[in-house]
Structure formats: structure tokens, C-alpha cells
């Protein structure tokens, strides 16, 4: 078996709060093959954003390993890390706060190149900026505009261009389309998929939107309160969701199709709680319709049920 491009082993990130440790990411294991997209879904507060940031070492993990091409980047020193940063990039959700309002479009796109000095010649840098702008579909007349002069869709294109500037292998996409209107969202999704086809990019696509995640990813991880509760190929997960939380999530998605009109029956009660000092056992137990006594006794590990289909549930 080939070495996955990205792999995490027992990755944990706890934040200290006055009320105790917040288990934002709790023992997450995942693998992403080169050229593929891993979707990470979950509701707000499930730790999916922190997971993405921890993998990139924008947040230092509490424990665990992050392997890039089989090597643990958490062991890397400053210099090695700088080198590997060129390969690992991120696209943010909020197209407003992710762009420095004092820089022009070309300055924003050129910034990573200047920092890493991959191109030092001024003219070549300009050429590169134009090339990137063309790649993401930004008209060249916008080169000296400021982000606040542009709409959300164009701003997100700048964010994509910036992420591409260093020619990365892997991009964490943190809800890149959630702030956009559907028609613009579709334009950006198409762009990202085209880029993946052209450049063999690997994505970790974080979102709360199940229809988007199904569309774009080959494999999906479902997260609940910092833990991965189910992991399967996209097709398998939607065809045969195993974890009661995944089932509830899928039931809750409103489908724009009358024939699939849900009866709003399989709705789970209650709301997500906070992952501060969680009790042992399944974190979904409090809301789970199929809860049993064994669910709250001890932590339930993610186990492979069928080929490539993992679930953390006492029922299986």
C-alpha cells in the first residue's frame, strides 16, 4: 500500500478554559491519499476547523502525530517547517477577514512568494501573479484593487490564488463556500475541482453542508464534539450511514426535491453540548435514539465494520 499524503495519528488539541479543558480535537486518526478529497462534516463546535488548523500546525496539537509523506511534521524544526509550509496551504471561510484590507489583490497573491522567496525576480513575480489570477478567473484589471472593492465570490478567488501561489500539494479548505450565495458557491466549487484535476491537488474539505461534501469528496469523516464518529467513502456513507448521528444528520438535510421530501420524522432531539471535560463514553449518547447502557461506560473506539467503513458506535 502506498503512503498516504497526509495522515494523523491520535491527534488531540485541548484548549484550556476557566471551566476546564475543551476537547476541540480528541484522538482523530485519518488518512488522505494523494489527489483525493477528504470531506470533514459536522455541526458548529465539533472541532472540524481546529482539526484543519492543527494539521497545518497553525495550532500546536496537544498530542498525536501529523504525517506528511510519511514523516511527522510535528518533529520538524523551524527551518524544515518553513520548507514544508510551501506544500501545505489553507483557504478560509470568511472572504472578508481572510484578506488583509490594506493590500491590493496582486500584493495579497504575491505575499507568500515574497515570504518564501521562491521567485525573486520582479518581472517574473508579476508574470506569476497574472498567471495565478487567470487560473482562478480574476480579470486582470482587478490587479490593483483592494479586497473591499470586490464581491464575496471574487474575494474567495483571491484566497484560492493565494493558496496556490507556492504550488502546494495539499490544501485545507475551511468552509470555503459557506459564506457565498448558491450561484457563486457553484462557480467556486467548479473552480476548485478543475484545479484538482489539473494539478493533482489533495484537499481536506471542511464543511457543514452535506450536499457540498458529497459532491466534492471521495471519502468523508463525520465529526461530533471533537471526535470522528464515522469514516467511509462518500458513496458508502450516503448509501449506508451507520452511526446514529450520521443518520440523523442525513435525515435533517432538506433536499430540494419533492420526491425525497422528508417527513421530518427522524429528527433527533436536543442540542450539541460543549466539549469541556467530556464524560467517558459516546459523546452522542445524550441525544442518541438508540442509546444503551454500554454507551456511557467507556470510550468507544473507531472500528472498521466493512471495507474502509469505520464507525465508533456500540451498536456494531
Amino acid at each position: 500500500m502506498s503512503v498516504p499524503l497526509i495522515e494523523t495519528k491520535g491527534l488531540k488539541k485541548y484548549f484550556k478554559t476557566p471551566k476546564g479543558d475543551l476537547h476541540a480535537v480528541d484522538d482523530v486518526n485519518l488518512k488522505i491519499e494523494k489527489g483525493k478529497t477528504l470531506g470533514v462534516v459536522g455541526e458548529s463546535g465539533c472541532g472540524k476547523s481546529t482539526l484543519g488548523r492543527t494539521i497545518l500546525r497553525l495550532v500546536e496539537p496537544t498530542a498525536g502525530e501529523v504525517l506528511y509523506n510519511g514523516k511527522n511534521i510535528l518533529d520538524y524544526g523551524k527551518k524544515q517547517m518553513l520548507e514544508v509550509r510551501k506544500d501545505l496551504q489553507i483557504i478560509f471561510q470568511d472572504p472578508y477577514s481572510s484578506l488583509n484590507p490594506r493590500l491590493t489583490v496582486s500584493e495579497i497573491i504575491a505575499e507568500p512568494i515574497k515570504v518564501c522567496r521562491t521567485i525573486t525576480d520582479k518581472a517574473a513575480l508579476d508574470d506569476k501573479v497574472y498567471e495565478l489570477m487567470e487560473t482562478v478567473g480574476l480579470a486582470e484589471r482587478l490587479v490593483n484593487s483592494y479586497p473591499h472593492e470586490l464581491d464575496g465570490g471574487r474575494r474567495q478567488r483571491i484566497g484560492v490564488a493565494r493558496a496556490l501561489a507556492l504550488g502546494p500539494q495539499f490544501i485545507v479548505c475551511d468552509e470555503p463556500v459557506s459564506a457565498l450565495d448558491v450561484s457563486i458557491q457553484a462557480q467556486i466549487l467548479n473552480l476548485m475541482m478543475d484545479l484538482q484535476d489539473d494539478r493533482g491537488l489533495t484537499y481536506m474539505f471542511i464543511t457543514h453542508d452535506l450536499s457540498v461534501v458529497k459532491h466534492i469528496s471521495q471519502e468523508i469523516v463525520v465529526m461530533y464534539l471533537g471526535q470522528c464518529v464515522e469514516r467511509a467513502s462518500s458513496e458508502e456513507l450516503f448509501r449506508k450511514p451507520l452511526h446514529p448521528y450520521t443518520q440523523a444528520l442525513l435525515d435533517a438535510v432538506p433536499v430540494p426535491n419533492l420526491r425525497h421530501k422528508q417527513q421530518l420524522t427522524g429528527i433527533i432531539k436536543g442540542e450539541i453540548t460543549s466539549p469541556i471535560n467530556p464524560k467517558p463514553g459516546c459523546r452522542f449518547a445524550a441525544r442518541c435514539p438508540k442509546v444503551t447502557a454500554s454507551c456511557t461506560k467507556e470510550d468507544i473506539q473507531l472500528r472498521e465494520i466493512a471495507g474502509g467503513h469505520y464507525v465508533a458506535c456500540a451498536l456494531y
Partner: protein
Amino acid sequence: MTEQQRKKTAYKKKSQLMSIWHRFKKNKLALFGLVVFAIMLFIAIFADFIVDYERDAISQHMTKRFMSPSAEHIFGTDGFGRDMFARIIFGARISIFVGVVTIALALAVGAVIGASAGYYGGYIDETLMRIMDVFLAIPQMILAIAIVAALGTGMVNILIALTVAQVPKFARIVRASILTVKTQDFIEAAKACGTSDSRIIARHIIPNAIGPIVVQATLNVATTILVIAALSFVGLGIQPPTPEWGSMMADAKSQMRYHEYLIIIPGLFIAFTVMALNLMGDGLRDALDPRLKN
């Protein structure tokens, strides 16, 4: 020049300073403030070319005491026969100089403290901010008086006293603006491509945090001018015979029943200078604030 560069120059870059200036210009009151302050600054800088310091502002002329404003002495003369106009314009030099220098120094020191606290956070932040809190608990005027009590009066001591009293405020302001910027995603984006701390501070944080700090600095020059005048008025600031607006009023207080102009004219100059700075500060805030509105 490559073709690309030519293209780039074709789409002209709009300077952000220019667009701020355009918005500032629209605010007539702020523009008025700027003009008034510019005039005061001009007078303060070129005072020596307008009147002679020794002859007009310092030397006593007992034959010319309490002369009401006239063509010869447009603001009249004081109890020692000195020309009020000359003393007023040299007073402008002191007030504006001390005000601006104090704030510049306080800003510089406060910025270092506030920036370290805000950027590094944690233990450094906690320690520095607790110390600043203690300083802030002492009312500014009282702290200044205490320092004057220790060092004695005189311009340099006043400058030190006022600067020390202002540092905590600026440390806080700088820290707060840095914290606001620090949480934005573009800082994270910069970190993601390995940008160094110093570059993040210089290129991403400072340009975005500077606006509110400049506004506060402007407004604080105004309050500092008021404090200098007040300290001098109670006799703990600039000492006579050096012409200073506040001490001029203290001198004239006993004769104000018969010579109101000795009180009214210096007061008006303080009020106008301070108002000009306030208007400028407000105008600047409006020009910078609307989140770079579309």
C-alpha cells in the same frame, strides 16, 4: 519592462492614504480643525520671526502695564507691561510642543508595551497589563502632580510627568487594536506560508491597527494641552516668566475684575487649539472607520 508590468501600471493603484484624505476632506468641520491647527502650528514654529522673544514676551515695561487691546498691542499688555500677543504666540509653542512630544513619547513607549502584550499574550500580557492597571488606577492629573512633586517643576519634568501618566493608556489602546487584528484570518494565512513574526507585525498588523491609534493620539494631544495649562495654572507646570497660557491666566487672576481680556484671550487660544485637535481626531476617525466601506 515585461508586458505584464506594463499591464499592471495601466491599472493604477489607488493610494489608501489618498482615499482617507478624500473622505476626511468631505467633513467640513474636520477640515476647519485642520486649518486652525495648521495656523497654530505655523505660529508656534515661526514665532521668532513674528515677534522678539526677549523684548516683547519677557522684558518688563512698567510704563505700559494693563494696556487694553489696541493697534499697537492687539491683545493688550499684562501686569508687567509685556505684550500679550507675543506671549500668546510663544505660549502656543510651549503648549503644542509639550503636547505633541508627550504623546509621541507616550505612544512610542506604550506601543512597545502594548504590542508585546497583545502579540505574545499569555504570561507577558498578564504581567504587563497588571502593571498598567496599577498606573491607570491613579488619576492622570494626580500622577502628574506626584511626579512633579518629586522632580520639581520645569518643562522637562512636566514632559516626563505627563508622558509617564499617558503611557498606560496607550499601552492599552495599542494592545486592544492588535488583539482585534490578530484574530483575523489573514494573520493565520500569513502564518500558513511561514511568514516571520516581524513581517506579520510590520506588514499585516501595524497597517491595520494604526488607524484607531492615530485617532487616539490626536485626541490625546488635545487633552494633554489642557492638562499642561491646568498644571501651570495651579503653579506646578511651566514657571513664569516663560510665557504659557495657563500660567498667564494664573498671573492675571487677581486683576481679572478690571482686565478681563487677560483671562479671555489665553483661554480662547487654548479652547481653539484643543477644539481643532478634537475636530481633526473625530474627522480622522470617521474617515478611517467605516470599515473601508464600499
